[in-house]
């Protein structure tokens, strides 16, 4: 009989902070004994009385949680919203960038193997994804328990000024970040391919005296253009400048490709079955460049014109259109 009470008390005490244990031990035993006595007095046999008294107290682990007054959640309601937004950002922005950046290297390997590139991309996505999720959650759990930096994370009380702008002219920060990130990755790839990725650079090294710096400058202009767009919103000059940049990049690239000054001829373009990849890649890239340029101009102009004229725009995720004014 005593053993049952002992087992109950010990199980509860295991999860209670040490400095409270002896006191709770005495108090809990006294309370159980009181309950048992009351039950015996009302005619229950001793064994049943003990069992029922313990049953009334319930799961000792829960009782211990209650005594220790600790949260039985990892991330509480105060931080959950911030955590969710943060995870969403990591998985929609950081993860794709990391996967694309690591996959680019595969295309410049000595023997390009599409299967291996896809496999690596999936592997990277899984590994990086698990790391992102784990470390973010672990950090938030620590903040939840220690309270360190919690107020900064919550970012002050909400005010109506925090509402996102849906006016068609307004350009969201996320949109601009996307516009800036891709030029930066492209520039990094152009510069890095000269030194790493492969023993022999993929792009013609002869172009570094003039053409590659020009291409880099034009791509950098596109990033600056995005910042300009963010500051002024969609205006006619913004659209014209975008078209000019697109045409300039497209023209230079097409010229370099057509005059065989784009790819490095010293690179090993011959495959195992003796076909010269360059004969295929050059026209393919020319077509892709022209199509890409046209798409960029059309897509940006249509989007910008709609916004500029204040036509109703779709608010992503709400299922509604927002009519300006």
């Amino acid at each position, binding site marked *: 009989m005593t053993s049952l009470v002992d087992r109950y008390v010990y199980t509860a005490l295991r999860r209670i902070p040490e400095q409270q244990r002896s006191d*709770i031990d005495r108090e809990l035993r*006294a309370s159980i004994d009181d309950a048992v006595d009351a039950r015996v007095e009302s005619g229950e046999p001793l064994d049943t009385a003990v069992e029922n008294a313990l049953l009334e107290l319930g799961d000792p682990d829960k009782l211990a949680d209650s005594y220790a007054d600790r949260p039985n959640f990892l991330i509480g309601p105060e931080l959950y919203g911030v955590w969710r937004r943060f995870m969403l950002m990591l998985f929609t922005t950081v993860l794709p960038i990391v996967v694309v950046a690591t996959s680019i290297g595969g295309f410049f390997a000595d023997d390009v193997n599409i299967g291996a590139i896809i496999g690596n991309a999936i592997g990277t996505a899984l590994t990086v994804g698990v790391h992102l999720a784990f470390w973010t959650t672990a950090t938030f759990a620590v903040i939840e328990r220690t309270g360190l930096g919690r107020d900064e994370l919550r970012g002050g009380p909400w005010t109506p000024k925090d509402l996102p702008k849906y006016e068609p002219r307004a350009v969201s920060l996320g949109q601009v970040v996307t516009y800036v990130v891709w030029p930066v990755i492209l520039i990094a790839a152009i510069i890095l391919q000269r030194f790493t990725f492969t023993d022999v650079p993929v792009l013609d090294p002869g172009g570094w005296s003039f053409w590659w710096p020009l291409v880099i400058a034009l791509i950098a202009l596109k990033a600056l253009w995005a910042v300009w767009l963010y500051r002024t919103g969609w205006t006619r000059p913004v659209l014209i400048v975008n078209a000019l940049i697109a045409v300039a990049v497209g023209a230079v690239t097409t010229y370099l490709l057509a005059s065989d000054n784009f790819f490095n001829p010293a690179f090993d373009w011959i495959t195992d079955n003796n076909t010269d990849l360059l004969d295929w890649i050059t026209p393919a890239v020319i077509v892709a460049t022209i199509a890409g340029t046209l798409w960029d101009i059309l897509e940006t102009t249509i989007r910008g014109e709609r916004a500029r004229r204040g036509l109703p725009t779709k608010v992503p995720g709400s299922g509604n259109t927002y009519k300006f004014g």
Partner: protein
Amino acid sequence: MTTDATLATHLQELRRGTVVVASLMVLRAPGYGYSLLETLSEAGFDVEANTLYPLLRRLESQGLLVSEWNTDEARPRKFYRTTELGDTVANTLRGEWKRLDGAITDLSFTHPGSDK
């Protein structure tokens, strides 16, 4: 969720906090865990031992109760007593309880759409 389960949730939310007021009032005369549990059950409070015992310690750490071990009897027991602060808090809570009761009573006499 069934109606019963919905009702149970709302009842639990409504009752939460009443045990605190009741305990602080009962313990103006010193008492130990099990005795308080009995008193509250007899008075009609639906309270479980596993909520009440941890609650007493929490109220003690907040300074609303003080405790003392009584070893005069065969079974040593921890006696709790409401402090002055606890009494003030209990009175404030009771005042709020009365105000809410009054407000609810007023509401039941008000007809929607009428001037009063």
